[in-house]
């Protein structure tokens, strides 16, 4: 087991695509780091560079204390779990798991022992003689995991290992992989585009945007204190509501103007403590972010934090909660950051349309109860302590 260090790593493909730009990332020994980002952000490329399947254009890659740039995958002593599992179709489950050991000329008894142990850990004992074709998707995924763990490698690399499973199995395997990693204590780099996996599994999460590391931190820190609009928009589901707003100072208080000046909410000191940059502004445009769970019933907040008379557009009853979508007159922020965070061409086009119309839909997460009527006016309580502020143009948090 070893730490993995990426130092100013760059990747330029032969066609000129600059896939990874100055990536610096330290993965401590035994740490579980998730590499997350929208499709095409370069996360798989980064992982493949650690594995040695992709050449490193510039920068230094360390596994342990050794620079591995020029080493073949074999010499790096890492194990990888592929999205497609990449099982050898002509080998039994046991042979699949023991292949690396066999190549390393480990004795047959030792291979049998280790394969059996891994089979027990993963609940594959009765399938060891079967071919991958005769296994279910979940079992194949376990075999792929087994192939990695029998080797006791320096590091595990996982490339979206759960994306081919159905939703229910994915939740189960998510917990199993996290528990397994915790028990084995092997340094792990895990790539996913699913931010729920990112939030639940890792010790730390590295968020990648178009080849650039946007932020790396513990999942909760990413959620509570995003460094930029991209991380704010990408992490969390439903995602953070972000609006074009103006900061104004009045009587020693800071106010944020929404609905193109028609609504003004007081920004409490708790929020200003988190985003001190806001206090320095007066009359300037900012991107104001608020998570759905911080929008709720008007009774629960101070009167100067109530967003009055919002038209209800749609109510989603989810059993444990109620999502209320309501109209605002605050235009959305349509920067590159937001486009990447949304990671969906159609959704972004819709946002652009809303921007032109001069408003957008916000989502609030309410306790389940009597749903407000669609089309009716509703007063929304804004937990303004939890507001986030970013520079409207650069997307950088106003700290």
């Amino acid at each position: 087991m070893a730490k993995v260090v990426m130092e100013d790593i760059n990747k330029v493909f032969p066609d000129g695509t600059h896939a990874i730009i100055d990536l610096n990332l330290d993965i401590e020994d035994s740490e579980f780091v998730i590499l997350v980002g929208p499709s095409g952000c370069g996360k798989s490329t980064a992982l493949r560079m650690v594995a040695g399947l992709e050449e490193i254009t510039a920068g230094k890659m360390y596994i342990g204390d050794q620079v591995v740039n020029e080493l073949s995958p074999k010499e790096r002593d890492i194990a990888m779990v592929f999205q497609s599992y990449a099982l050898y179709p002509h080998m039994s489950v046991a042979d699949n798991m023991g292949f690396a050991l066999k190549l390393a000329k480990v004795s047959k008894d030792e291979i049998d022992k280790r394969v059996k142990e891994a089979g027990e850990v993963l609940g594959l004992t009765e399938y060891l003689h079967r071919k991958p074709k005769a296994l279910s998707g979940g079992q194949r995924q376990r075999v792929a995991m087994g192939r990695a763990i029998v080797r006791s490698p320096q590091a595990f690399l996982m490339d979206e290992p759960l994306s081919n499973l159905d939703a229910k199995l994915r939740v189960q395997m998510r917990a199993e992989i996290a528990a397994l990693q915790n028990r084995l204590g092997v340094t792990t780099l895990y790539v996913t585009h699913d931010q729920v996996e990112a939030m639940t599994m890792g010790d730390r999460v590295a968020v990648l945007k178009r080849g650039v590391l946007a932020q790396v931190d513990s999942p909760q820190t990413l959620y509570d204190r995003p460094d930029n609009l991209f991380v704010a928009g990408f992490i969390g589901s439903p995602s953070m509501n972000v609006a074009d707003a103006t900061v104004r100072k009045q009587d020693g208080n800071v106010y944020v103007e929404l609905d193109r000046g028609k609504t003004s909410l007081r920004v409490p000191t708790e929020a200003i403590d988190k985003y001190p940059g806001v206090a320095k502004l007066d009359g300037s445009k900012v991107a104001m972010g608020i998570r759905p769970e911080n929008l709720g019933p008007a009774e629960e907040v101070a009167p100067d934090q109530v967003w009055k008379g919002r038209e209800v557009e749609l109510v989603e009853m989810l059993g444990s909660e109620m999502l209320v979508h309501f109209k605002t007159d605050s235009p959305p922020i349509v920067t590159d950051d937001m486009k990447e965070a949304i990671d969906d061409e159609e959704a972004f086009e819709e946002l652009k349309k809303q921007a032109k119309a001069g408003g957008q839909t916000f989502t609030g997460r309410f306790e389940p109860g009597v749903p407000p009527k669609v089309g009716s006016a509703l007063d929304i309580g804004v937990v303004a302590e939890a507001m986030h502020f970013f520079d409207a143009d650069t997307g950088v948090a106003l700290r």
Partner: protein
Amino acid sequence: MGNAVTGLVAVLLGVGGAVALFWILNFAAERMPKQWEERFKPYAFIGPALFVVGIFLLYPSIITVVDSFRTSIGTADEAWTLANYNWLFTDPALRDALINNFLWILFVPAGAVSIGLLVAVLADRLSPTWEKVSKSLIFMPMAISFVGASTIWLFIYAWRPPGTDQIGLISAIFQGLGSPLATPIVQNGTLRLNTFALMIVMVWLQAGFAMVLLSAAIKNVPEDTIEAARIDGATEIQIFWKVTIPQIASTIVVVTTTILILVLKIFDIPRVMTSGNFNTDVIANVYFDQLFTARNQGRASVVVVALIVLTLPFMYINIKRFRAQEAAR
């Protein structure tokens, strides 16, 4: 014009006749009592096909087997005998032909598949343009007939006495290098190697076929499994033998048996290049000589029987594999 009309009438009669035949049989079947109809119907439809197969395949086969036990067929001396079989097992020339056939079976499919595989693997690593060019070059001979290919190779092997102008490629190369060949290449005594010179023609023709199928199979091997093996610590050679080859094994078997069946019937190349002389004879050519030159129908028949018996194991394996494949679907 008259011929065209005759042809058209023949086609109409043929197709119309088949339709009419099935219509009449079906009509007859439907007029039968219910339990009879169910039993009769399948035979009504497969009957004509069975009849045709019987007349054109089964009947000649039986006649051939029967003829193999007779001598002087069609003459007053016609008699039942085992002499043909005695000849089959004792004639040294025929034994040599059998050995040659065996050598063809042993080396040609293996040679064509190995070369096809090598080209497929190497071409896979070229840029797309060069891959296309190199594959086309290897594939091109596929379009040449056996007779045409034999003629081409006769020119390549052509030999003239040292010092004279050489028209054969190989002889010319040796003469150009200052050590002209003293003896002809193929038409030379009874060297066993002559057969191999003929086999090269077949390998040249079939390597392209093997390459096309194997190349497609190699491209179907998931790249992930190769990368997984690389991470598992396999060298490129280990990847080839332990990951790629097992995944294309079924295609290798298909290609090998296809070429094998072709080789079992080998006739054209020895016929054109040597007429079976210089120790290059094969049984199909022996059959031809016996039937049309020696006019010995009994011996010709016994050669065919031998060929059928030799083919049976391969047919059995092929059918078994085909059934297994169908069952696996």
